[in-house]
C-alpha cells in the first residue's frame, strides 16, 4: 500500500513538474517585462525631474528680474525726487545763456531714441530688445514715457561711467551747460567743412537841421539788409585750413544802369579769403585777403558780437586799412602768467577802390607792412579778461587815390554843397585836397593802442590811433594850378566804450540787456581842415541778447563838430542780428 502511494506521488509529481516549469517561465517573462517597464518609468521620471529643475531655474531668474525691476523703479523715483529738489533749490544756477537752452528737452529725448536706433556702437542684442520693446510701446502708447525712462536705464548698464550720467543728462538737458549741442551732435568728428554766418537787418534815420548836411545823408528813414555774411571754414588737411567770408551787401547786385533809369546797387564782397598753414601754435602763416590785425573792433569782426550797429567814425576813416591782400604770420606764445599774441603782415597798400581794376589789386610797387602785439592774462582771477594791444602800420599812398571812408567824402561834399570854394582853394594852396590829404604821394604811418577789460558784468574797451602823414612829392593843385608840397602833420582819434550787462531774467524777461555808452574824438589834419575834420561822437545804446544767436540793438549817435554848430547832426540806428 505504501509502495503504491509512493508510486502515485511520483507519477503526480512528474505530471505536475512539467506544469510548474511552464509557470516559472511565464513568471520570468513577466518579471522581465516589469523590469523594462520600471526602467522606462525611471527614465521618464528623470526627464521630468530635469524639466522641473530647468523650470525652477527660470522661475528663479524671473524672480530676480522682478526684484531688479522693483529696485530700478525705486531708484527712478528717488532720482525724480532729487531732480525736483534740485529744480526748486537751484533755479538761480541755471544758465539761461547756454546756447543749449534753445533746445527742446523733448526733442533731446527724440534724438536719444533715434540715436539708439542707428547707433553704430550698439550691440545686436540691444537692438533686438529695443525693437521688441518698441513694438510693445506702440501697442500701448500710454506706457511711452515709462518705457523711455526704463529703457534708458537698462540700456546703459555697462557704459563707461555713463549709467548715471546719461540718465541725469536726459532729465536735465535744458540745464546742462554747453553750446550748439544740437548743431555739434550732427557734426562728424572728421568733418572738413563747416558753414556758418549771420544776417543783419538795419534801420537807420539821420536827423539834422543843416540843409547842406541833410542833403548828403539819406533823408528818409530806411530798413536795409546790410549784412548777409557766409563763412566757409575748411580744415582740409591736418596743418592746413581755408577760410572765407562772403558778404552780400544790401543786395547781391552790382551797379546796373538801364535805359529806364533803374539803378540798383549792391555788392558781393570777399571780406576774408585765406589759406593757412600751421607749423606750431606759435607760427601760423596765412596768405590771401585778411582783416588788418589792429585794435579790437577790426578783429572782433561780426555784427552779432559787436555791441553797437554803427562803427565808430574813427575806424570808418580807415587810418589803418580795414583789410589787405598779402601774407600774414601770427602765433601765440604762452608764458607763466600771460599769453602773448603776435601778428606780422605784408600786403597791398591803400587804394581807391573805385579806380582799382580789382579791389584787391595794388596800384604801386611799394607794399604796406604792419604788425601787432597783444598781451592777455587768462590765468589770473580778476584780470582774466584784460588785454592790451599795440598795432603799427606803414605804407606809401598815391596822392588822392585813397578816398578813405564814406564819411570823408561827405565832409568834402559839404564844402561843395555850400559853394565854399575858398576853403578848398586854401587847402590846395597848403598842398592838401578837400578831405585834408596830400595832393600827391605820401608816406602813411599809424600806431594804435587798445585795451579791453571785463570784470563780472562791467566791461570797457578803448582804442587810440595816431596817424603820421608825410607828403613825398610836389603836386599841382587841380583848382589853382599852383605847384605846392604840403607839410607833415598828424591826426588822431580815440573812442572809449563802457557797458554793463544785466540779466533781465530776474525781471521776468528773457536774455541779457546791455546798456552802453561810447565817447569818440576825431582830430583830423587839424591845421587845415579843422572846420569839418574835427568832431566828437557820442553814442548811447542798448544791446539785447535774446539768446546767443539772436541780438537786437538800438542806439542814438550825436556828432558835434569842433567849430560849426550848425552842421551837428544825430542819427538813430537799430538792427536785428541772427547768427547761425
Amino acid at each position: 500500500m505504501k509502495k503504491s502511494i509512493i508510486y502515485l506521488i511520483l507519477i503526480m509529481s512528474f505530471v505536475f513538474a512539467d506544469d510548474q516549469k511552464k509557470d516559472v517561465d511565464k513568471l520570468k517573462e513577466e518579471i522581465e517585462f516589469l523590469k523594462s517597464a520600471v526602467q522606462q518609468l525611471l527614465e521618464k521620471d528623470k526627464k521630468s525631474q530635469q524639466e522641473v529643475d530647468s523650470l525652477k531655474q527660470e522661475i528663479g531668474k524671473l524672480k530676480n528680474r522682478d526684484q531688479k525691476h522693483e529696485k530700478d523703479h525705486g531708484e527712478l523715483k528717488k532720482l525724480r525726487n532729487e531732480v525736483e529738489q534740485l529744480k526748486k533749490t537751484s533755479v538761480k544756477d541755471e544758465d539761461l545763456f547756454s546756447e543749449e537752452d534753445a533746445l527742446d528737452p523733448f526733442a533731446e529725448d527724440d534724438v536719444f531714441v533715434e540715436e539708439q536706433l542707428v547707433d553704430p556702437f550698439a550691440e545686436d542684442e540691444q537692438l533686438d530688445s529695443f525693437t521688441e520693446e518698441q513694438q510693445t510701446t506702440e501697442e500701448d502708447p500710454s506706457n511711452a514715457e515709462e518705457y523711455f525712462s526704463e529703457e534708458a536705464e537698462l540700456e546703459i548698464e555697462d557704459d563707461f561711467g555713463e549709467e548715471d550720467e546719461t540718465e541725469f543728462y536726459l532729465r536735465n538737458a535744458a540745464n546742462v551747460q554747453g553750446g550748439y549741442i544740437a548743431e555739434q551732435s550732427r557734426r562728424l568728428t572728421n568733418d572738413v567743412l563747416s558753414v556758418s554766418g549771420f544776417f543783419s537787418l538795419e534801420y537807420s534815420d539821420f536827423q539834422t537841421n543843416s540843409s547842406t548836411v541833410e542833403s548828403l545823408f539819406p533823408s528818409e528813414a530806411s530798413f536795409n539788409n546790410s549784412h548777409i555774411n557766409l563763412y566757409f571754414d575748411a580744415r582740409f588737411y591736418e596743418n592746413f585750413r581755408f577760410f572765407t567770408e562772403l558778404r552780400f551787401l544790401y543786395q547781391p547786385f552790382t551797379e546796373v544802369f538801364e535805359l529806364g533809369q533803374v539803378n540798383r546797387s549792391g555788392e558781393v564782397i570777399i571780406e576774408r579769403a585765406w589759406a593757412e598753414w600751421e607749423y606750431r601754435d606759435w607760427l601760423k602763416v596765412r596768405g590771401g585777403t585778411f582783416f588788418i590785425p589792429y585794435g579790437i573792433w577790426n578783429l572782433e569782426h561780426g555784427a552779432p558780437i559787436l555791441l553797437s550797429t554803427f562803427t565808430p567814425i574813427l575806424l570808418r576813416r580807415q587810418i589803418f586799412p580795414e583789410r589787405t591782400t598779402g601774407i600774414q604770420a601770427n602765433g601765440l606764445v604762452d608764458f607763466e602768467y600771460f599769453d602773448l599774441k603776435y601778428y606780422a603782415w605784408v600786403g597791398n597798400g591803400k587804394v581807391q577802390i573805385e579806380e582799382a581794376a580789382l579791389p584787391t589789386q595794388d596800384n604801386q610797387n611799394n607794399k604796406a607792412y604792419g604788425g601787432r602785439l597783444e598781451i592777455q592774462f587768462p590765468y589770473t582771477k580778476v584780470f582774466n579778461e584784460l588785454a592790451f594791444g599795440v598795432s603799427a602800420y606803414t605804407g606809401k599812398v598815391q596822392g588822392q587815390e585813397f578816398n578813405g571812408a564814406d564819411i570823408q567824402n561827405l565832409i568834402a561834399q559839404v564844402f561843395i554843397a555850400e559853394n565854399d570854394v575858398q576853403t578848398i582853394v586854401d587847402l590846395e594852396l597848403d598842398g592838401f585836397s578837400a578831405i585834408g590829404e596830400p595832393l600827391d604821394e605820401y608816406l602813411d604811418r599809424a600806431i594804435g593802442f587798445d585795451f579791453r577789460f571785463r570784470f563780472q558784468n562791467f566791461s570797457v574797451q578803448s582804442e587810440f590811433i595816431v596817424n603820421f602823414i608825410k607828403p613825398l612829392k610836389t603836386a599841382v593843385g587841380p583848382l589853382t594850378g599852383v605847384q605846392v608840397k604840403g607839410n607833415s602833420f598828424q591826426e588822431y582819434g580815440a573812442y572809449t566804450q563802457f557797458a554793463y550787462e544785466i540779466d533781465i531774467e530776474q525781471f521776468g524777461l528773457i536774455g541779457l540787456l546791455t546798456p552802453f555808452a561810447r565817447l569818440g574824438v576825431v582830430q583830423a589834419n587839424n591845421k587845415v581842415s579843422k572846420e569839418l575834420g574835427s568832431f566828437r561822437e557820442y553814442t548811447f545804446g542798448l544791446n539785447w541778447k535774446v539768446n546767443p544767436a539772436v541780438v537786437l540793438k538800438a542806439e542814438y549817435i550825436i556828432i558835434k563838430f569842433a567849430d560849426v554848430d550848425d552842421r551837428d547832426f544825430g542819427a538813430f540806428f537799430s538792427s536785428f542780428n541772427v547768427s547761425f
Partner: protein
Amino acid sequence: MKKILNICCVIALVICGCKTTTKTPSEQYAESQKRTLYLVVHQTNPSEKIAVKELRRLYLGKKGKWDHLVVVKRYDYPPLQKAFYEQVLRMTSSEVTRYWNYQKFMAGPPRPFIIKRAKDLISILQKEPGGIAYVTSKNIPKNLKIVAEFEVVRK
C-alpha cells in the same frame, strides 16, 4: 542757578551739534553728485600728466598740437560739461559761450566736439591719437590712459 546754566549750555551745545551734523537736502544732494573726472588720452600720447593751465589751453583751442605734433581733438561730454568748465577750468557758462561766439567770428579754433554717450566717446578716443576727453570711469581700454583727475560736483 549754576546748575540751570550748565544744563542750558549742554542743551545749547547739543542743539548746535545736531545742526552742524544734519545736512540739508540740497547738501545731501550735492554730496550724492560728487564725481571724479578722469582726463583720458590715447596711449601713444607722450603726455603723462596734464596740469589745469595746459588743460585750459587745450580746451580753449590755444594749443592746437600735442608735443608729438599730433593735432589736438577735443571732446565734450554734456552730462559733465558744466562741472568740467566751472570747477576744473574755472570758467562760467556765459564766459564759455562768449568765448566760442567770439572765436566763431574771429576765425579762431573750432569748439570741442560734443559726444553725448561715454561709450561712443571711448570708442572715438581709441581711434583718435590726438584725442582728449573726460569720463567718470577709471575702467578704460588698454590703449587709453588717464592723464589727470579732478573731484567735481555734478551740476
